[in-house]
């Protein structure tokens, strides 16, 4: 009586790319199992959808900039999806994450404050950051909590007041205020504050401190801790009491906007009939000629072979273990041992400066036009293995501000290719 699991599609990875692929395949009628070594990247993510922020100059409109960008970067994953594929993916995302009220499109980037008071470009923001777009300037009151170590309102406000608005003309005024936490003792951890803020009594006491300080502020910025499950209610209530828009500034992890997105996508996967298994590692694969037959995953005691018709690798890039570098410098994709495109032979993987453009940064997998990993001759490793997200070669998501766009676009590309054949 051998242990065995069967499914139609096995997706490895539960970040943006893995979940988006899994949901679309499940919505397309496949039995889907998503396995992940842990809770992916979303608990660390800001919750915005970055598509293209710098190329390398600041990008005002991703739609206008993408054509030239892809032309200048012929190895970039965006070449596979094109602007139409990207738009379809963002449409799908906005509908799927509907409970979080995402706003925005490819027409223009929004410029939202970072926790240090810089402005960064992003294409889509959740409802909780709808008022965070300061491209047109504004007068912001930054409200922090005394003793909350992850958010320093004075630092944020001073830097924000110095930051030039991207349109150049409109000015940003920013002031700060530090409030006393009214919700009891203990370490002020964001996930605990978020839960306590779902209590209307706590919010009232916070608002009472805040109201005399509002002045002419057109919006109030808070750390990103305005509730978890009932975040929309928490914000609506604060806006009603403060009589002006309220927005969140994501900061150090754990990130509530990312966790809410994780909750939302997980629920969408389950609602579509998919399964999620967190805490299990994909450790080996079995291939017969050009067809992958099973992937072995870990369990509490004995590992098990999961058989499927199609497999999707969405394990993330070098930073999250989707690609590993051995002590001798060899670059490996650890599940399938796929060919990895990295620095050229003899090329130094790292530049001398920490923040420089390192040759290793673009490491990843090459794929065919359907998103199937290929070898150096362009032949797919297996007819039924696809890859999506940060595991793909050729992008610098943190520099380009393109991470979520890449993950969503390549997830849709792969899901469409699989469902076409299914």
């Amino acid at each position: 009586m051998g242990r065995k699991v069967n499914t139609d599609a096995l997706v490895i990875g539960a970040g943006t790319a893995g979940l988006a692929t899994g949901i679309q395949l499940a919505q397309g009628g496949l039995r889907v199992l998503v396995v992940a070594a842990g809770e992916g990247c979303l608990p660390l993510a800001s919750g915005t959808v970055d598509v293209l922020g710098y190329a390398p100059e600041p990008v005002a409109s991703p739609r206008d900039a993408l054509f030239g960008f892809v032309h200048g970067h012929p190895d970039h994953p965006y070449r596979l999806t094109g602007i139409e594929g990207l738009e379809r993916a963002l449409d799908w995302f906005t509908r799927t994450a509907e409970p979080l009220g995402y706003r925005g499109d490819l027409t223009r980037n929004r410029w939202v404050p970072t926790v240090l008071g810089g402005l960064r470009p992003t294409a889509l923001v959740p409802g909780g950051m709808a008022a965070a777009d300061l491209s047109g300037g504004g007068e912001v009151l930054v409200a922090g909590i005394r003793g909350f170590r992850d958010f320093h309102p004075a630092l944020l406000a001073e830097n924000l007041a110095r930051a030039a608005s991207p349109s150049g003309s409109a000015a940003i005024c920013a002031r700060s205020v530090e409030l006393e936490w009214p919700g009891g003792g203990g370490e002020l951890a964001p996930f605990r504050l978020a839960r306590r803020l779902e209590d209307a009594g706590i919010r009232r006491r916070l608002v009472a401190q805040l109201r005399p300080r509002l002045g002419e502020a057109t919006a109030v910025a808070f750390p990103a801790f305005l509730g978890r499950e009932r975040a929309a209610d928490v914000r609506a209530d604060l806006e009603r009491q403060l009589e002006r828009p309220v927005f969140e500034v994501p900061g150090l992890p754990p990130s509530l906007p990312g966790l809410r997105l994780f909750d939302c996508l997980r629920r969408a996967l389950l609602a579509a009939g998919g399964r999620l298994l967190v805490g299990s590692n994909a450790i080996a694969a079995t291939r017969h000629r050009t067809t992958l037959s099973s992937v072995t995953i870990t369990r509490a005691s004995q590992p098990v072979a999961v058989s499927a018709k199609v497999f999707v690798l969405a394990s993330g890039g070098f930073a999250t273990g989707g690609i590993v570098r051995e002590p001798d410098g060899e670059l490996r994709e650890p599940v399938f041992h796929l060919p990895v495109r990295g620095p050229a032979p003899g090329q130094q993987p790292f530049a001398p400066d920490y923040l420089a453009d390192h040759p290793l940064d673009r490491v990843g997998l090459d794929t065919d036009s359907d998103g199937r990993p290929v070898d150096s001759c362009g032949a797919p490793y297996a007819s039924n293995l696809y890859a999506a997200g940060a595991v793909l070669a050729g992008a610098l998501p943190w520099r380009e501000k393109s991470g979520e766009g890449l993950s969503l676009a390549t997830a849709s590309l792969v899901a469409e290719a699989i469902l076409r054949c299914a």
Partner: protein
Amino acid sequence: MSVASELGRAPLPTMEAWEVRASLDGCIKCTICESACPYAAVTERFPGPKTVGPQEERFRQGPLSADWSVDYCSGCGICSRVCPQGVRIAEINARARAQLKAQHGISLRDQLLARPDVMGRLGRPVRPLFNWAMGTPLVRVPVERVLGIHREAAVPEVAPRTFGQWARRHPVHPGRDRVVYFHGCSTNYFEPRLGRMVVAVLEHQGLSVHIPKQGCCGLPLQSNGNFPAARTYASRLARQLRGVPGGVPVIASSTSCGLMLKREAREILGLDDPALVDISERTYDIFEFLRDLHEQGRLRTDFVPVEVTAAYHAPCQQQNQLIGKPALDVLALVPGLKLVELDRDCCGIGGTYGIKREKYEISLAVGDGLFADIRATAPDLVLCDSETCRWHIAKATGFPVIHPLELLHRAYGGH
């Protein structure tokens, strides 16, 4: 002398136990575990798995332990599951708790709660008195004062006959494929009915069910910090289950006890026992086993329609087996049944955690979201594979809570 004992800690007897501690080096302080911990979210007494685990573990050297906050970890294991770096956070914390108890001693209450078999054995001869006493504030209030067992905490009734007594007279079926049934203490003393249904469902698949005399797996001892006794129990159980020769599958209907055999006794207790290794590699959760039968086309599907709405909660220890939610896969085959998956991690009971006076409120707060989901779903039945979770959820919500196997038994026409 091992490295650990040179540092003044209890020695780590096996490589697996050593790897658990060494895994803390992988912690990058991403705080994913802290945001997933249902206990840290509701109580300041537990600062969070990262803080208490990999962070404080670095200071746990020599005879002076760190603070007591580790005792507010319930051992649900969600932190280890969500950690993308493979840090065995819950396991590190379980070991730290045992170290604390080894230094300071274990209270009478925790000694008692850690031995469900002893409670069952003592309670059964005076069953009517015991069941009455546990149901009346006249007794529960003083018990709370003296022992620290919360007066409102759900306590099961002791059954008139043990499952073991029934099993001794139950025939095996020579010539059929054999399985061993590991029923656990709860089935033995409190819910023998469940055990009979497990046997009936397995025999319905054409199997011969062997039920060797068996004791406690040691899990409650482990979670209450008594590792030496837990090791003795787990080793003895492994030998008892090996009494049936032939390396046949061992099937558990209690998810937490099943996980104890599969992994925890090896990883947390560091038990280096070939009998346990053998048993751990062939232990199945009952629904994991039934789903495997179905995958092989061997599960009987002669179901009668069951026209109910049932909401399913997968307990933490079930999810920690990393087998998915096989109860949902199998019950999906039952005609008429409307299944709702409750997308929650933990009910808050943590085995014996929520029974304790100082932790009962925490336990209710952790389960709050689950209870709200159940009330919103308003199902005919709630399904949950773990006994202490069932008792806790039933007490907190007032809904009937049964093992999913009971529903499957009903679908096979059983009563």
